[in-house]
């Protein structure tokens, strides 16, 4: 099943275009990097607040309301451009350990975020300045650790395979 998926992506018009056009891959990668930087920078703001290391007088609910829309827009752009980059060499990416690690870490980041929003944040005590419950501090630490690893894996893909 995975082979037919990879073959279909590899033979798609967009995949062939990105693999063959000398400008397409670099420009898509630029947008991917810029959007990923925005995702990490905006999440870091929230994570540092959750851990109680910065912005302690900014209530978490207000901070997430103002920051997370930016994070989501940037994440959607990063996912779309990431998919386009993948389409240029699906077999190469699928066989790359750093790529697989990055995908697993993205899933873990999503799981951590879901637990925080659905359990910890709904548990209350988020609309006040100062220290937060242990669950929130752990969620912030796990999030920043996973996102640093995602960036490291993303950079490592570039060192361990040619783009197309």
């Amino acid at each position, binding site marked *: 099943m995975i082979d037919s998926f990879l073959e279909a992506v590899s033979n798609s018009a967009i995949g062939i275009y990105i693999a063959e056009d000398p400008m397409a891959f*670099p420009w898509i*990668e*630029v947008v991917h*990097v*810029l959007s990923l*930087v925005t995702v990490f920078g905006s999440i870091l703001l929230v994570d540092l607040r959750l851990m109680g290391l*910065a*912005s302690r007088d*900014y*209530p978490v609910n*207000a*901070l997430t309301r*103002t*920051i997370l829309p*930016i994070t989501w827009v940037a994440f959607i752009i990063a996912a779309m451009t990431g998919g386009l980059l993948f389409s240029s060499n699906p077999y190469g990416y699928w066989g790359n350990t750093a790529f697989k690690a990055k995908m697993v870490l993205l899933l873990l980041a999503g799981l951590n975020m879901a637990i925080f929003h659905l359990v910890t944040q709904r548990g209350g005590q988020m609309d006040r300045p100062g220290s937060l419950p242990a669950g929130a501090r752990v969620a912030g630490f796990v999030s920043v650790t996973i996102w640093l690893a995602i960036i490291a894996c993303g950079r490592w893909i*570039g060192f361990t395979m040619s783009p197309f």
Partner: protein
Amino acid sequence: MELTGREWSLARWHQRFRSGTIAALWVLLATGLVMTLAEPERELLNWIFRAKMVMVIVTLIIAHFLSRRLEQAKPDRPAGGDVRAAAFLVLLCWIGIATAGRWIAYAG
């Protein structure tokens, strides 16, 4: 640009990020120097690298004046048009710097 984070004043945001931004700039400078020393010809002979360095200098000058303007800002006053324009310009410059940084690997 006053597009987000209105619970805090501009002065408060400036105070919050000033030291972190300066620390990150020093890390960028140190790691950039190491990478340039490792492959000086690849970097110094690349016109995109040179353009990036010019953009970095211009951006830091604009950001410095923006920072001084924010230090003098009254906490309860909204940003003036000049501050929003300078912030937009600095954002555009950093996007240009990041774009040039990525393109060094492909062209020059």
